[in-house]
Each structure stands twice: as C-alpha cells, then as structure tokens.
C-alpha cells in the first residue's frame, strides 16, 4: 500500500501515527511532510528507524518550494509528480493520512 502524508512531523502526529499503524509498504511525503526527510531535523531518527519496514519517498517540487531541495536525507528517494503517479499506479491501493 502507498501511504501519503502531508503534515510536518514536528507540528502534527500524523506521520508518526502512519508509521506506528501501517504494516509496511511505501510512504510518500508531500507538502509539509517533506520536512521529515530533511537532514538534521528532530524527526530524522524516527524516520530512519522506520525505513526497514517502509520505502520512503519525498516529492521534489515540495522540497524545492521550501528551500530544502539540497537537504534530503540519505535513504529517501525524491520523486516528481510523474513519480507520484507511478507510485499510485504500482501499489494496489493507497491511503492519505490527513
């Protein structure tokens, strides 16, 4: 399953709930959730710990908009809008964690 998260990890528990609940699959970070995948942020270690169970992606246009295009942490794959569509198509279903 593709899990889509759009909230900052430092102001919302959404990403943490997603990682604690979902059994595995792909996580795509979009909008303010891309801050979770930036080097040196306080949530970085929690995201890294979840990488064994999840493949983590971040939407590049949202990183760039926030001035974080060059701050993506290791192990997270940047995707463009086309890559977003590919993830939605390659997973059998998806869940948006609002």
């Amino acid at each position, binding site marked *: 399953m593709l899990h889509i998260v*759009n909230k900052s990890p430092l*102001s919302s528990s959404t990403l943490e709930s997603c990682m604690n609940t979902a059994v595995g699959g792909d996580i795509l970070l979009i909008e*303010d959730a891309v*801050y979770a995948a*930036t080097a040196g942020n306080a949530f970085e270690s929690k995201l890294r710990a979840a990488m064994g169970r999840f493949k983590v992606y971040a939407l590049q*246009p*949202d990183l760039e908009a*926030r*001035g*974080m295009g060059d701050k993506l942490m290791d192990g997270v794959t940047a995707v463009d809008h086309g890559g977003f569509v590919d993830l939605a198509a390659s997973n059998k279903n998806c869940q948006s964690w609002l």
Partner: protein
Amino acid sequence: MSDVKKFMFVNRKAPYGTIYALESLEVVLITAAFDQDVSLAFLDDGVYQLKKGQQTKGIEIKNFSPTYRALEDYDINKLYVEKEALEARGLSAEDLIVDVSVVSRAEMGKLMDEQDVVLSF
C-alpha cells in the same frame, strides 16, 4: 496624537502547506502603515518561513519569501527567531533569507510578555 503600541506577530506555521504564513505577512505590511512598534516572532515550524532558497515553480504557488527582505523598507527590523526551533530542524541563522535575532525560548517568552498586542498565525 495616538499612542504607539507594541505589536508582535507570532508565526508558528510552515509556508505553503497552509495559508497562515502568507496571511501573517499581509497583515504585517498593513500594520506597518500605522507607525506602530512591530516585531515578528518565528517559532516552531514558523522558522521554515525564512529558509533560504525557496523555489516554488514546481508547486505553482507564489514564492513570498523575498518579501521578508523588504520588511526593513517598512521600518520593521525586529525579527526574532527561536533558537531551539532552528536546532530541532537542522537549521542555523545562516540558512535564513534575512538577518534576524536568534533568541532562546525563555527570551522569546519574555518578549511576548512585553507586548500590548499579540497576533498569532
């Protein structure tokens, strides 16, 4: 004629994900026309508003971050950024688009306490 009051705008939201950051900036610019003592505080995710290098073409939203650099033209020079918030986000003052005063959370609390009016975004 009129008393000058101390106004503080408290910014705690990241830009673009919600409209708060842009709306705050709009109200700050309006307030500047009234010759009040204006300061801006950036804490929690609000510090992300000042991150250098924002490129919003890919999300088709106006990049309003250059406007923070224009604030000094409106005699708004008091920008306070919470040190702890920067550190929790892997950022430092060098990552920011404008010169700011980096203050501790405790100092920020004192600054807030000195205000006549606090507007929260």
